């Protein structure tokens, strides 16, 4: 009996050793941790329960039968993050380069199926050389199985991908379909075709970092939602994100004890809006001063910075924030910001996370570039997302809310539950000067200036909208946190559903 127990431990030790000391050392030399070390950092201490430790591949081509390491290049299982269950797979680059075989994929599928069944998030730590070429089409089939499960899990349990090494070719499409992708700076990259193929086909010379590094995907392509300095920080920050997310689409978002008075007054917000209506200010200050303990988890911080998206807590409960940022492009909506915010709003709606919208939007960005690239359809995404969302929606207009962009930004007309405005807000069809020039076409510059002033006095305020009930209440900036917190508190029992449909047809 003792021998058998000993044999188990020996086999376990072999599996835990991954690709062996040399490959582990090489992994460390690249500034990367091993698959198991990452899991240790991701999960609560001692909470990891592993599946399929002894699974190995069945390939006999190209001499593969001689190399059948236990675990087959991926570590899978479940554990807890601050006591809440999550499923995790972590590709092991030290074992066969973390390449995806039929069995490697099957391990991933097993925990994905369990996650969907049991209602817990799936966290994928990607560090893989790609398909296991020796297996040929079996490997591709494996990817296909994973993709299918990504799609079935979408909107059922949160899916988080962390790219912690290479992720190339078809492999990118699994993370691509998850809710959030994070990357590790300098040690990860993602692309469909690598620099070599690019060079052959298009003659472009580009490094892997330039083509698909963290900077590219957080700033240019928007494929990634954030990037972290190193593996340790990445795991800590994924834990922090999970603290904000519900485990599945049947649960309310998590609530935790908080140490910040919901009725905290912030007198400094009374002076947030500059006297000059064209001067920018930092909308993040408002987010931080409204949030519990000034804690804000920003999503896509470096992309389309004219809109801010991320999570805060109010009275300990997660809230998604969408806010125009006047510091960048005057906070206007454009293709990128509409896409960014639309995806965030749909995530929140899918997982019952209430949405707070902070509005200072002068309109949509004009120009041929925008029109040719389809701002009509992309802008419609955000409109669509807000309109279909049934979660509690609270909106605060701080300054400009002009034209169609006003309607888009979670207006009363799109089933906004609470639509507040600061006294400094201007809810109007457009800016005074532009409106006057259209209404009084052909008048002298002098007349236009006078009429614009009249228009401004009449319409550049929240009261015209408030008279119609489009604004529920004009509030003092200093009491924004209290008003917003109470609004969400009153919406805790909100029940709203859309007509039955197979699914909607959002303009993709």
């Amino acid at each position: 009996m003792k021998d058998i127990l000993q044999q188990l431990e020996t086999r376990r030790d072999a599996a835990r050793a991954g690709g062996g000391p040399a490959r582990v050392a090489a992994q460390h030399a690249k500034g990367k941790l091993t698959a198991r070390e990452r899991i240790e950092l991701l999960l609560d201490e001692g909470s990891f329960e592993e599946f399929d430790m002894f699974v190995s591949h069945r390939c006999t081509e190209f001499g593969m039968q001689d190399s059948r390491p236990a675990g087959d290049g991926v570590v899978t299982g479940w554990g807890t993050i601050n006591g809440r269950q999550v499923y995790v797979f972590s590709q092991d680059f030290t074992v066969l380069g973390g390449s995806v075989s039929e069995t490697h994929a099957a391990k991933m599928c097993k925990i994905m199926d369990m996650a969907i069944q049991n209602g817990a998030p799936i966290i994928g730590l990607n560090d893989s050389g790609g398909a296991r070429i020796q297996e040929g089409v079996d490997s591709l089939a494996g990817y296909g199985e994973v993709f299918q499960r990504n799609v079935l899990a979408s909107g059922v349990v949160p899916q988080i991908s962390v790219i912690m090494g290479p992720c190339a070719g078809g492999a990118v499409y699994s993370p691509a379909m998850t809710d959030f992708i994070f990357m590790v700076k300098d040690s990860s990259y993602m692309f469909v075709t690598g620099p070599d193929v690019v060079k052959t086909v298009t003659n472009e010379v580009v490094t892997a970092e330039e083509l698909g590094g963290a900077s590219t995907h957080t700033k240019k392509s928007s494929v990634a939602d954030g990037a972290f300095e190193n593996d340790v920080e990445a795991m800590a920050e994924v834990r922090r994100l999970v603290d904000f997310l519900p485990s599945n689409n049947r649960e309310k978002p998590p609530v935790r004890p908080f140490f910040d008075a919901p009725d905290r007054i912030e007198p400094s917000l009374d002076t947030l809006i500059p006297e000059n209506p064209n001067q920018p200010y930092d909308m993040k200050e408002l987010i931080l001063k409204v949030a519990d303990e000034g804690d804000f988890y920003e999503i896509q911080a470096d992309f389309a910075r004219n809109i801010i998206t991320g999570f805060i807590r109010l009275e300990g409960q997660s809230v998604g924030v969408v806010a125009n940022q006047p510091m960048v492009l005057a906070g206007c909506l454009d293709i990128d910001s509409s896409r960014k915010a639309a995806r965030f709003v749909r995530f929140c709606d899918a997982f019952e996370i209430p949405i707070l919208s902070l509005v200072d939007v002068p309109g949509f960005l004009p120009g041929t570039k925008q029109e040719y690239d389809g701002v009509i359809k992309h802008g419609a995404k955000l409109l669509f997302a807000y309109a279909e969302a049934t979660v509690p929606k609270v909106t605060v207009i701080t300054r400009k809310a002009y034209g169609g962009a006003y309607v888009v930004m979670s207006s009363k007309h799109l089933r906004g539950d609470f639509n507040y405005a600061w006294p400094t807000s201007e809810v109007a069809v457009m800016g005074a000067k532009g409106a006057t020039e259209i209404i009084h076409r052909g008048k002298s510059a002098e007349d236009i200036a006078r009429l614009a002033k009249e228009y401004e006095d009449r319409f550049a305020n929240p009261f015209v909208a408030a008279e119609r009930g489009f604004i529920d209440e004009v509030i003092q900036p200093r009491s924004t946190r209290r008003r917003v917190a109470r609004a969400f508190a009153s919406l805790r029992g909100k029940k709203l559903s859309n007509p039955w449909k197979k699914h909607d047809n959002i303009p993709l």
Partner: protein
Amino acid sequence: MFKKILIANRGEIACRVIKTARKMGIQTVAVYSDADRGALHVAMADEAIHIGPPPANQSYIVIDRIIDAIKASGAEAVHPGYGFLSENPRFAAALEAAGVAFIGPPVKAIEAMGDKITSKKIAQAAGVNTVPGYMGLIADAEEAVTISDQIGYPVMIKASAGGGGKGMRIAWNAQEAREGFESSKNEAANSFGDDRIFIEKFVTQPRHIEIQVLADSHGNCVYLHERECSIQRRNQKVVEEAPSPFLDAATRKAMGEQSVALAKAVGYASAGTVEFIVDGARNFYFLEMNTRLQVEHPVTELITGVDLVEQMIRVAAGEALPFAQDDLQIKGWAIENRLYAEDPYRGFLPSIGRLTRYRPPVEVMAGPMADAGTWHGDAARGARAVRNDTGVFEGGEISMYYDPMIAKLCTWGETRDAAIAEMRLALDTFEVEGIGHNLPFVAAVMDHPRFTSGNITTAFIAEEYPDGFQGATLPEDQLRRIAAACAAMHRVGEIRRTRVSGRMDNHERRVGDDWVVSLQGAEFALKIAADHDGATIRFADGAAQRVTSDWTPGQPLAKLMVDAVPLVLKTAKISGGFRIRTRGADLKVHVRTPRQAELARLMPEKLPADMSKYLLCPMPGLVVKMYVAEGDEVQDGQALCTVEAMKMENILRAERKGVIKAIKAQPGDSLAVDAVIIEFA
């Protein structure tokens, strides 16, 4: 007594004058430019009158605007504060003509002392020692060089009408004399509307010690002892104290009596300050007399109990001084730190923007002011005093138009050590966010052994911080205290995280007791034993510290007791720990489990990107002049361009020999901080 006075100033000094006026039952009128519409002094005054656009030369120093405001408000007297029109004889004369009292000295005294050349002659005549220098007017840069050569370098080039470091340069050679003359002249013209310049010997290794005098129009004149203002950066005072740790009773008396003699010689009536340079042998030389309330007057008030503004108002109303020289004793010690909107991590360049957070320490009343009932504002009484004279508020804007000084934090204690100890805590408690500011720097000075020993000169900052300021480096005992505090705080935060809803019953996360704290390159393994009142932290070497606090996660200011000694930390959450600011240090503190720490050690250290090939704009400002063109070869130290910010012209120089590859900004361009100006090949 006057029923209503107007304060022809802004910022903290306007607020400070309003406080005393209010205490005396006098109505106050504030004036403001467009940039100050929402300023604190406007909110504090009983009424406020708009006087023009933001630049001071279109508002605060336009005499007609102030006179109009006086007429509109019906004010009977004007307090000019410091700077602006405070030492402008034409202003005092205009008030006299308008039949309005000037809360300051007679016109003649301002004229006599306001001009540094005249004042020096008068001082000499009154038997006051003076520093060698050239008294005449200087026509151009070439003459400035000739004169400088004659006096011998180093020389100080000063605006005749100047003060507070504006329009002042030190030149160590002919080239610097030439450049310094030009820029002083420009600054003087911009700031004071008077571009006269004079040059004198620059006395090295000096202390700056000044005497506060107070005279009435009945022939009484007293001195309120000295202030030492040796901690200066580029002739701009940063730290002041009263009394001086250097003077003996005899020197104090001699300086005081000479100052009174000078004041009497010019028929002085009001508060004034006679500035001296004192050398290591306690020889003192007259520097100048400031015929106004001095910025650093609070330290004198704190050790004498005299409200100088009150006395200025009473003298202006014709009252006689209520005390004689013998009534004025020094009691205790007072320190002042000036809070400047200048970023010490960027060579002290001006910083502008919105004060997203501004929480000064709570004021405490103690010492002579408390005893004399001259404390203004409400504060609880304590053993040591904390006083903050400020003109800003949370949510307010620091604009580029005015002086970057935003507050004066003063403490008073029975001894110098007590005053310094109180100052350290007050600085740690002072929260200022949104702009760059010098709080960390002055906090470091308060801990500097040369400062605490009192062995200081005006070269203190230049000598002790020759490469600028990169944050204080804390000693190990201090690091241990911070490590213990952060471990306890981190544990509280982690336990809170385990209380999130939706967790698996019976499978909760248990937060461990063993932690590894890393900060400032040091690492401490420790074990936490928490109980109801706090936590006992035991280090690997067996030493233990007791931490108690009512801190909760998210609070930016953590007030703790570590082994019964107060520790105040400015905290911000970072991944896996805190950013901690205390005692002039800015630290990333990571609190990790032993296993996390082990893995973190495997992470590569990343170096910041190399920006050495670029000249970056060190502050938000306006490009005034570009001295080089693309393709030029430049030498180390060669002037590249001038950027004006906060009324100061800053010449940016080449840090090494090189060739200009591209010029990315032109004169007239408004640049943000870190904007690229020049790219080197």
